[in-house]
């Protein structure tokens, strides 16, 4: 584990937010070290946007502590506002301004010195590939450009912490790639908190993932850790032909937990798909192949199934729903 810097960029402890009887965020605690990209995952209404709004100081928390760069949000809001670049959900922009005018206005509000602002605007326009549209009116831009204007605006003042609520929503795959590269280019320099429900997105950009559901953290860690922790098993798929016979026994001798999960129907050539599962995370492909050969089965293909973050997400959110159902106290759903 890398040494954690003395002061995490974002620190949240026991955060609770309830609106008129509904608990949107229920006792969340996490901290983000400087320079890390944290992905915030959750189904709709899980409390992602609410948490982000509390982090920016836009909404007050019901209880709990939040501090950004060491400044508590509740008492030193002015210092906190200088530390963050925030892009809200749906990225609201004034329609009647030009891109460069908007960035200039935002730069002045964010206290970028007047002398540096011009060159800084050029830099972010370059970074977000917006040079072509700098004199266009924002209301006439396409969704992809608007989204990039929002991102350019949030990194404009070079804040140490950037919070973006669903930055890739409504973008085409090519634009998603650009945004992803852009976020990756901030790694190490700025702490980035992004929320999304596009899972491959998060998996590729983020160092760490936090899954929340119904206002609670249900899983956190790197994508690889989550796979292990939440699914707790690896799976293999083999296409083979022949009689299984004593295969289950053979498999058991490789690894105790290794067993046949399912067998598919035979196809025209006499092959079927056999799914194996085990709790052991080590790669056992070679041993399995040898066992099949030993049994005299003909093998056409072997693959190790990689659980995607999607599986992790579904498993984690399902797990939390189960937990809530078992909870004797009725918890209001957001």
């Amino acid at each position, binding site marked *: 584990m890398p040494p954690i810097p003395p002061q995490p960029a974002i620190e949240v402890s026991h955060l609770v937010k309830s609106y008129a009887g509904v608990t949107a965020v229920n006792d969340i605690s996490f901290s983000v070290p400087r320079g890390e990209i944290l992905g915030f995952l959750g189904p709709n209404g899980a409390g992602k946007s609410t948490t982000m709004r509390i982090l920016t100081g*836009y909404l007050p928390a019901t209880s709990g502590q939040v501090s950004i760069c060491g400044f508590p949000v509740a008492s030193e809001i002015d210092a906190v506002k200088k530390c963050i670049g*925030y892009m809200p959900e749906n990225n609201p922009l004034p329609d009647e301004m030009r891109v460069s005018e908007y960035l200039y206005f935002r730069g002045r*509000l964010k206290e970028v010195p007047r002398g540096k602002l011009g060159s800084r605007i050029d830099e972010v326009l370059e970074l977000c590939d917006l040079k072509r549209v700098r004199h266009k009116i924002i209301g006439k831009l396409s969704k992809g450009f608007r989204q990039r204007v929002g991102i350019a605006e949030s990194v404009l003042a070079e804040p140490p912490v950037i919070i973006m609520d669903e930055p890739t929503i409504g973008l085409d795959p090519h634009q998603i790639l650009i945004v992803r590269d852009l976020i990756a280019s901030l790694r190490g320099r700025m702490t980035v908190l992004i929320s999304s429900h596009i899972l491959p997105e998060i998996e590729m950009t983020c160092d760490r993932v936090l899954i929340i559901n119904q206002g609670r953290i249900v899983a956190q860690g790197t994508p690889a850790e989550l796979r292990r922790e939440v699914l707790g098993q690896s799976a293999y798929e083999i296409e083979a032909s022949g009689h299984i016979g004593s295969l289950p026994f053979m498999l058991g001798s490789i690894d105790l937990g290794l067993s046949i999960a399912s067998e598919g129907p035979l196809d025209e050539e006499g092959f079927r798909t056999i799914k194996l599962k085990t709790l052991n995370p080590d790669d056992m492909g070679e041993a399995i192949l040898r066992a099949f050969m030993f049994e005299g089965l003909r093998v056409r293909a072997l693959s190790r199934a990689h659980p995607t973050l999607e599986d992790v997400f579904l498993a984690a959110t399902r797990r939390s729903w189960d937990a809530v159902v078992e909870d004797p106290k009725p918890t209001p759903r957001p």
Partner: protein
Amino acid sequence: MKHFLTILSHEVRMLLVSPSTYIAAVGFLSVMGFMFTGILEAYSKAPQDLSPASAFFEIYYFPVIFMVPLLTMKCLAEERRLGTIETLLTTPVTTTEVVLGKYAAAYLLYLLFWGSTAGFFYILKRFAGDAHLIDPGPILGGYLFVSVSGLLFIAIGVFASSLSRNQAVAGMLSVTMLVALIFGGQYLANASWLDREALSPIKDAVHYAQIQQHYQDFTRGVVDMRELLFYVSGSVLALIFSILSVETKLLHS
């Protein structure tokens, strides 16, 4: 307050690039021009008691009731509807700076509109060649009244805009509040149920808030500190309510 000027210049710029401002200005100047022509025609037919300037400023409430809502209904309602208030308030800007910046921009534009009616008097002076038509006292008093009372009217418009995220609702609210403020005082002053002894403090308060009476004092050249204080304190109160309204709406958003 270091962001006040940034927001003010941004708001003025936004008002000046928006076509609706020019449409409103043309509408305002043509209506006021027609009225001014009407007044002059009355003068050419028969001698009048009042100077043309007094007669002209007497209809000040007409543009106030129509122009002030148009100028102010957008300012906070639109920010909330589009959600740009969220990006605005997460920068190192306070709600006070935002509200004051928008208020000052609308007030400057209001002054600009009224200021452009000075052209009417210039044309009159240039072509009538009749010195007694141009009485500087009522003209100065009229403009002073318009600029001082504008403080309160614009503040009420801003307050109405902070109450709703729908521009039309904000506009209707400010029309209602302005009408109640301008004509309600007169109505209450004539109401006989206020003549009772127990209600005399209310009667005094109503007497103090007679905007029509203030207008007459100003054009006669009587500038009373109490009247100035009425407008200044009224606008400060309306602005404080606007700031509180924006902030409470955030808590419940």
